[in-house]
């Protein structure tokens, strides 16, 4: 039957062409799509050029160039693999959409790999590869240059194969029996990348030659590490040939794993949500437990529904947990890594969950999806929706904001700072909720129908979300300054004085909250139908 298939080259051309058409369609689509695709191209180029310049400079001038490359290549493979697993299979063409096409396993797998090469991430990777080529080929002959080029190509192939295989495996698991495991792994992947960045940047001053050398001794045992070793041996190509072959040796195995995992993914069920499983809810309904304390009426009702659906939807629940771990972890990671707390004033930082609230709530309309029309139809206008989303943000983060300062006080013994910490926490919570609801109304993003908890959907959505998150953090930093500066000054004198200075925090927070809700209300009111259209994912 082989004569009946279209063949690998044609499948590759066809599927990669499809990806190209989708990207071009994005550029011709709505303003938001244009911004998303344009932004992702711009950021990929920017980060790619930074990587290019950085790697070229390190390769040319650093005394530890060899060790750095041997460490860099496997670390980037791991990071990109983890990020691909976290962001999901929808970032490129979903294999499940091609399941009914008469393609062989190889045609589908290789075709989708071709599609993954088309797009902004590939631009970034290629620029980084070019940086390695320029950096590590200085003063070498043609054979040496070929060796570096072959190493870079092998590294890029490893990046591609491993990242897509990770994404395929988790994508297939996320629709089957291992749904919860896959969702947990996707979260853990994202958190591991964050933890890695924290560890690396925290101890940046101690990155001397000895440490690079020690790390390189470990990294060289990996295939990408061997590719790094090969590239770093360009001045002596004979010595580099062995590592190059070892680095390439696992590529056939990776390619096979990729093709098999692509087929598994294509044949897995694409059902979103509960995956067709019957899941009972509690008899006390939406208003049970802590949610019963929310005010009666439309605002409280939408807020209660938001909180319930958030914690019943793995993607949203994972998002909240990730937001909390990263948001609170910014202050806790230091004491945890160092094994102790130096300054007991750290207690005051515990409730500053600006990042957590923003990360959790900056797409609070988008995560509802098109079902939001039900509430709009039932009379929830822009004012109700904006207030409800702000209320739900405050309600969800209130408990951690109250508890974390206590935990830090217990770790540091700085109980005297607790009153100020709680006042600051209230201010931070209110202000962040205000900014997050404004962000959510200004740039609502449709979420894909996916069981993957961190699926990002269309190209550029992640970039847009990151930009909005950054803008939100800058706004909060500026808005918090009138409280932060007096509190910082007072904290060098006494705890009571600091608490007095912190009294202004809730007032300022309430003002920012009011402003954020007003912006969101103005943006949505009378345009509720357009909001629902914005957050309806394309089919």
């Amino acid at each position: 039957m082989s004569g009946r298939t279209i063949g690998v080259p044609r499948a590759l051309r066809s599927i990669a062409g499809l990806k190209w058409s989708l990207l071009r369609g994005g550029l011709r689509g709505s303003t938001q799509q244009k911004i998303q695709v344009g932004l992702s191209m711009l950021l990929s180029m920017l980060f790619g050029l930074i990587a290019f310049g950085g790697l070229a400079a390190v390769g040319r001038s650093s005394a530890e160039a060899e060790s750095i490359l041997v460490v860099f290549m496997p670390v980037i493979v791991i990071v990109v693999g983890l990020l691909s697993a976290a962001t999901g299979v929808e970032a490129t063409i979903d294999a499940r959409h091609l399941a009914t096409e008469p393609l062989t396993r190889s045609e589908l797998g290789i075709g989708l790999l071709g599609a993954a090469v088309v797009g902004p991430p590939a631009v970034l990777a290629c620029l980084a590869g070019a940086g390695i080529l320029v950096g590590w080929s200085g003063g070498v002959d043609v054979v040496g240059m070929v060796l570096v080029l072959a190493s870079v190509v092998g590294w890029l192939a490893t990046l591609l194969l491993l990242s897509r295989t990770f994404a395929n495996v988790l994508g297939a698991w996320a629709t089957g029996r291992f749904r919860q495991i896959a969702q947990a792994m996707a979260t853990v992947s994202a958190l591991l990348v964050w933890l890695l960045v924290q560890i690396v940047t925290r101890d940046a001053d101690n990155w001397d030659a000895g440490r690079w050398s020690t790390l390189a001794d470990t990294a060289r045992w990996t295939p990408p590490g061997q590719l790094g070793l090969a590239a770093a041996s360009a001045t002596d190509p004979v010595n580099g040939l062995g590592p190059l072959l070892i680095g390439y040796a696992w590529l056939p195995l990776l390619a096979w794993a990729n093709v098999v995992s692509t087929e598994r993914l294509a044949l897995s069920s694409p059902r979103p949500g509960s995956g067709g499983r019957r899941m009972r809810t509690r008899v006390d309904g939406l208003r049970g437990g802590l949610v019963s304390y929310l005010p009666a009426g439309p605002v409280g009702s939408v807020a209660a529904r938001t909180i319930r659906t958030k914690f019943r939807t793995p993607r949203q629940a994972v998002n909240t947990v990730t937001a909390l771990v990263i948001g609170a972890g910014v202050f806790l990671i230091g004491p945890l890594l160092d094994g102790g707390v130096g300054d007991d004033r750290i207690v005051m930082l515990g409730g500053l969950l600006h990042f957590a609230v923003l990360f959790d709530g900056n797409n609070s309309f988008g995560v509802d999806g098109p079902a939001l029309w039900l509430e709009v139809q039932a009379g929830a206008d822009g004012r109700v929706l904006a207030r409800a989303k702000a209320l739900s943000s405050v309600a969800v983060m209130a408990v951690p904001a109250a508890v974390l300062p206590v935990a830090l006080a217990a770790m540091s013994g700085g109980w005297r700072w607790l009153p100020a910490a709680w006042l600051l926490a209230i201010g931070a919570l209110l202000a962040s909720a205000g900014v997050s609801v404004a962000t959510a109304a200004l740039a609502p993003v449709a979420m894909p129908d996916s069981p993957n908890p961190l699926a990002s959907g269309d190209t550029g959505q992640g970039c847009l979300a990151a930009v909005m998150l950054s803008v939100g953090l800058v706004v909060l930093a500026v808005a918090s300054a009138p409280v932060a500066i007096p509190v910082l000054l007072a904290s060098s004198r006494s705890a009571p004085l600091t608490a007095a200075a912190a009294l202004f925090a809730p007032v300022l927070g309430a003002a920012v909250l009011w402003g954020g809700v007003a912006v969101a209300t103005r943006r949505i009111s009378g345009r509720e139908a357009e909001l629902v259209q914005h957050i309806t994912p394309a089919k």
Partner: protein
Amino acid sequence: MGHNESVQEPSEASWPAIVARGLHKRFGDHVAVGSLDLDVPVGSFCGLVGPNGSGKTTSLRMVAGLLRPDSGQVWVAGHDTWADPVTVRRLLGVVPDPLNLFDRLSARELLRHLGELRGLDPDEVRHRSEELLGVMDLLESADEQVGGYSHGMRKKTAIAAALLHRPAVLLLDEPFEGVDPVSAVAVRTMLDRYRGSGGTVVFSSHAMDLVDRMCDYVAVMAKGGLLAAGPIEQLRGTGRLEDAFISMIGATPVDPASLSWLDDLPASQ
């Protein structure tokens, strides 16, 4: 019933349940609905029929306030959908296609939530919810998340949600698609009763026999425009509605000579 470009408001003394004037919606180069004028009398059971892509769903979404028209106006019981949306939403019950329900709520939770949003008395919401769930045969699964429901169960949940506040006008997009025959009878009985008490029902459907049986008023759409609208007896004449419909849209029967390649099975089979 014309196709005027200009908007002509009806006289306020005799507001029909729905009035659309010059409704126009374009998606890119494609005109989904072009200058639609439509009056649906109060208390009627109106069937909106037309081939695929004729603009039925787009029209219903514009009437419901779920899709803003490029031009034109819609009034529901005399209230402008886009100038007075809150009042119109209070007057309407809507079952759109696709349904888009909150998958992580149970049917019971969904009904109570919507009741609270609409400001209904909680005891009344509880009473109505249980009755609606019972009639729809959803009581057994009322505490299961909607995401696990079959298509028909989701449809019945949406119909229950649309009826909960006893709207003045019901807009239903393909309400019987995917609903089992027993439930369909229950829904039809419910709709008849609702209409009998003065409610207006507008529903889109491809099922001509259903429209023939249930409706007293029909609007026929094709290529984004209204071909005809009026009492069903007037439109179908002495024949069947289906024949009148095919004749109106000018469909040509499939030429038996075309698609001859369908006769050749692949060699491997």
